[in-house]
């Protein structure tokens, strides 16, 4: 992270606009023109220029459901991604391992619980249940390297966020197949899976 040379706090919109700084994301204000992007590469406004090339992903999950308790264990996940040309196989695989485990947390255990005033009831790792290393399943990874117009450097595409997107859906489908009913809410906690089985 680079240091910020200047920092001011605006208290009115006028002050903020007068600072003539660029506000990214949810901010407001003038956005400068992009610097000219080279024919290949990710350099551009917000780095988004190259992302007109979508990734295609399929995940498959093998789960075991304890039908008496609703406890779900993910045994294997197969993750196949088309993220264009893979420039660094070890790094790309790492993104998928991490993303799949994150997706398992979204699917089964990670839920922010709020009280009536909007305060978090589980603001610690005892009750906000991240997936532990002991819960990580066998993860099989494969890559489909497709030539895509508008791809990034050397024909690559992004592999940051995509690996955690389809995992919960695959797990939800697997649970529905075992249980016979859909669990319509994430995370699919043991109690929700158990409730779904009650019919």
């Amino acid at each position: 992270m680079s240091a910020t040379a200047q920092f001011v706090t605006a208290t009115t919109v006028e002050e903020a606009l007068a600072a003539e700084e660029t506000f990214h994301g949810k901010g407001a204000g003038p956005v400068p023109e992009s610097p000219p992007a080279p024919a290949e590469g990710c350099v551009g406004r917000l780095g988004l220029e190259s992302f007109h090339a979508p990734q295609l992903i399929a995940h498959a999950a093998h789960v075991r459901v304890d039908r008496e308790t609703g406890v779900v264990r993910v045994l294997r996940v197969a993750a196949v991604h088309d993220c264009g040309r893979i420039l660094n196989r070890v790094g790309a695989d790492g993104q998928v391992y991490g993303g799949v485990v994150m997706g398992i947390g979204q699917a089964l255990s990670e839920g922010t619980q709020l009280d009536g005033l909007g305060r978090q009831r589980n603001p610690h790792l005892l009750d906000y249940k991240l997936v532990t290393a002991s819960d990580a399943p066998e993860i099989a990874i494969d890559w489909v390297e497709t030539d895509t117009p508008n791809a990034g450097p050397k024909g690559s595409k992004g592999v940051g966020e995509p690996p955690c997107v389809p995992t919960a859906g695959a797990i939800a489908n697997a649970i529905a197949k075992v249980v016979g009913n859909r669990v319509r809410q994430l995370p699919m906690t043991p109690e929700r899976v158990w409730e779904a089985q009650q019919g």
Partner: protein
Amino acid sequence: MSATAQFATASTVEEALAALAAGARPVAGGTDLVVGARQGKAPLPDALVAIHRVSELHAIDGDADALHLGALVTHAEIAAHPDVRARFTALADASAIVGSHATRAQGTIGGNLMNASPAMEAGGPLICLGATVTLRSTGGTRDMTVEELLTGPGATVASNDELLIAVDLPHPAPGTGSAYVRLEYRRQMEIAVVGATAVVTLADGEVSQARVGITALAPTIRRVPAAEEVLTSAPDEASVEAAARAAAAASVPISDLRASERYRRAMAEVIARRAIEIALVRARGGDVPIPASAVGQ
């Protein structure tokens, strides 16, 4: 987190007792006291006496009649002890799954008991295995059962100047098998939402004695006499089911962020049945890996 005004380290039980008599509270592994203070549950006491260097409280040994656990024996030490694994298997099941690896390496049996959580893993096995504790103050020593020690969530009969010195477990009769099973949402770093203990003794193929306990299902960990009576009448499949139903009926669960009252009550029956079944297998000489909670998971 408030600052503790006074902090002293005791190297003998006598020094620790003198500090307690002067108003200090004891700290050993700190896994409840320090974490609780950070979470805002309770501020740190004004005066603390660290007892982790009191070497005589680290002992884990036994004689012909009983296994002796000093108050500072850690969960990890209990879970790894050959005698515990062979004869007090339910306690090994419980000690092997307390919190995380770090909690088990740091947390002590004495601190665990005196924290008096109705969700503590070791409590059910200790109660069902007939464990006693020794409390000592500058005024004297008294012994009692773990059942008598625990009176409510976070509450014990001990007064503030008393230190838990040791836990003693009488050797179970030959033919005894035991198990502690906990409902686990994930494989590590869990806390009991529902737990159950079973200790059964077989004589000539019949259950001559049974103990069933429920954890995190009432203000204190408690035995279920109705379940024990059913099991001693005839150990068939129907009696195991009936005992499990009795365990659920004896539950007075709460609803909170971890589970609803309804789910907890339903799980009480499932988990109690699994604990009884595994205890019976072990009593017959069958090998069920420790911790029993991992079976089938």
